[in-house]
């Protein structure tokens, strides 16, 4: 089948999509956007998190066909040209990135949290990121990064 979907502000078309393909597969293998990651493809790790119509979803659990006519924003669509989104900048600055495989999903989830809750408490950060596994960092520097990003976003308002 053919799938028409807006991705990062551009209208995209994927052809020859098999019905069983996930949004994650189509993004990664058909649209050249491998930023969303494939750590479990079962909805358990959050590494594939993208926005679908403004709501974060596990793209591995969304059938590609369901996105027809809808709008997707991936980690590749967060920066403004060379200017990183504050969440991205904070992850680099705070050393929250090791292998980085969890990073795209965590960044989308944290981006959504800060948009909804400008000054999240530590408990709110932990709750919001509970669906995103990281095996490298023990989450300490991820907490730092989200606090920093929230402060930066708050400062700009």
């Amino acid at each position, binding site marked *: 089948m053919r799938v028409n979907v807006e991705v990062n502000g551009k209208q995209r078309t994927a052809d020859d999509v098999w019905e069983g393909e996930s949004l994650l597969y189509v993004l990664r293998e058909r649209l050249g956007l491998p930023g969303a990651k494939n750590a479990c493809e079962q909805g358990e790790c959050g590494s594939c998190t993208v926005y679908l119509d403004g709501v974060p979803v596990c793209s591995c659990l969304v059938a590609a066909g369901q996105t027809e006519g809808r709008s997707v924003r991936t980690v590749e669509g967060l920066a403004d040209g060379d200017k990183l989104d504050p969440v991205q900048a904070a992850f680099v600055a705070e050393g929250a990135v090791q292998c980085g495989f969890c990073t795209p999903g965590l960044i989308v989830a944290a981006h959504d949290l800060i948009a909804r809750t400008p000054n999240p408490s530590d408990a709110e950060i932990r*709750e919001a990121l509970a669906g995103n596994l990281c*095996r490298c960092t023990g989450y300490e520097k991820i907490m730092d990064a989200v606090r920093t990003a929230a402060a930066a976003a708050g400062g700009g308002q």
Partner: protein
Amino acid sequence: MTSTEQRSGTVAGGVGESPTRPDGVVKVRGEFAYSSDLWREDMLWGATLRTPHPYARIRSIDISEALKLPGVKAVLTHEDVPGENIYGLEHPDQPVLAAEVVRYQGEPVAIVAADHPETARRAAARIDIDYEVLEPVVDSEAAMAPDATVLHPDHGSNVVRHVPIQHGDPDSATADVVVTGEYEVGMQDQAFLGPESGLAVPAEDGGIDLYVATQWLHVDQKQVAVALGMPVDKIRLHLAGVGGAFGAREDLSMQVHACMLAQYTGKPVKIVYGREESFFGHVHRHPARLRYEHGATKDGKLVYVKTRMVLDGGAYASTTAAVAGNAATLGVGPYVVPNVRIDCYGVYTNNPPCGAMRGFGAVQACFGYESQMDKLAAALGMDPVELRVRNAIDEGAVMPTGQVVDSPAPAARLLELVRDRPLPAERAAEADLRDLPGGVSNTTHGEGVRRGVGYAIGIKNVGFSEGFDDYSTARVRLLAVDGEPLVSVHTAAAEVGQGLVTLQAQIARTELGVAQVSVEQADTSVGSAGSSSASRQSYVTGGAVREACRQVRDAVLDLAAQRLDVARAGLELSGGKIASAEHGVLVELGELLGSTSIERIVEWRHRPTHPLDPVTGQGNAHVQYALAAHRAVVDVDVDLGLIKVVELACAQDVGKAINPDAVLGQIHGGTAQGLGLAIMEEIQVSGGVVRNPSFTDYLIPTILDMPPMAVDVLELADPHAPYGLRGVGEPPTISSTPAVVAAIRAATGRALTRIPVRPEHITSTD
């Protein structure tokens, strides 16, 4: 030529600082190319057919139905392995594709290439294999019995390795107080997030370029070449982005399979494991059974320790022999014990193969000896930290192998550091649900919740031991681009997330005083760097990069002396300038270089280590020891057996923090994996069959499970190591587990002799 010791620092981002990672920005943008992200216009997808049986004889394999599926380009079995159908890290004992027998559930039997991954999987499912199912050997003790089925007849028995250690006179030693205990460690998985994957591309010269996530490019290269029957230089490996490793990428997974399919089809072939396949695609941490006897005087001095350890290596040897060596040589922990007897066995069974995982044998031993130290403290009526401090090693201590600890070993100080930290606040009467065991599941409002505090310390060797020729290679080139000096550092060392790319550049900046450093992509066009494991890369590849830089610096100063016609003595390279005390600044480095580039390639080794005596276990087997201690504070709902870890404090001696932020990252991450083993992580195997190969059923700590971590870093230089550094990655994983378990014991009064601790161990409902 021996290089000089002088440093050329003065640029920012050198040794001891925490510059940001060079790969950080591409990683946060989603543009870093991991091994599963690779793509070629005409590539095919590979899939692997794995056996469902832990032990079976293969009567026949019929691939005809698989070949009929449209889109299928190749279906290969053991008959198609071009070279030798056997590989292995230490002992080649594992087939690339099973021929006559399968020895564990998930062993690869056939591989398929097709134009869509789903087509490849469906074709694999159509392969018909006729098995004669055999009775598997699934118990590590039973595997050692004289009448056990021998799984590798060539090896003669199921014992991969027995490591005996005899120190002092354990048989006649007597003690005032004796405690014994039996302990069990479950099978932990590395659970890196980036699945096994890679892309094999056929080259015009008949060779293959393999882009892959691995820990050691050259050991893969060698094994792939043997399996493909090709000269080593025809198999070129390139490190693709690695999504974590933790030991699970030391053995081969899809490397040979992808190369075979690429060779047969003439097309690039990509293989990406799913999470379930990943659980079968790599080795795990050895499950262990440990029996300990500790004897001490009534004032708490250890007199003797006797232990018998059995490590279940599963179906193939992998690194079992070395893991057993570590468990044995580190088997009494960082304590002075005059009389020791250790018997450590690594055995073959039909369980999943086990090999390297962060901590490598030291983790299992530490759960045993630290549980014993708590038991001994209780028997003596002594504070558990005080007992540890009284017996702690320090520089000059003699280990059970007879090896003298010849650099700082501040075991007592690390324990005191975690003990003396202020404790976290008591739980509030009206605690936030999110801070309680069970969290928002709303299982308690505090009733039945008890707090406990526990301590542990662990010890690890750094680098490869027991006489292994452990080295790394660095190629460093200094040139000028548009008049500005630039250093290029090229090694084959695998960046797996730990931050080695940052560290290599820091060393080059410090040694050459040049701000611009480019760390080239790791591949096999430069000599081996050894593995990114055993906490060794900062030491060994760091040592190689440092030495290569120093040789380049000497060459630059020679060049300056010659071109400027000044005396070589007294010349310095600093801040991008050549200067001397006598003349001041003589020339800018960029100007001196012009179009000249200076390159040095160095193979660098640490001090040699030595094999253990096969009977007494004596020998200087290790190049360096590393220590970390933890204090854990937990809240336990004793009615439901639910646990909330409230805080984990860690103190570790790192010799010299080359990159303090990266050191913290290792301590945090290692601590988290230790917490996982303590309370949640276990591959459940029954009858040789894995019951939980998914992230739904194999749980790793989430951000809700991890408490805040307070960290003290000591920097007591090891005079034998580059910059005095000590390997960092593994020690925090080792002590975190027993500290958490000790805290749960303190909260519950339960003996808790098995990890991971399950709710029923606390409530006694099992």
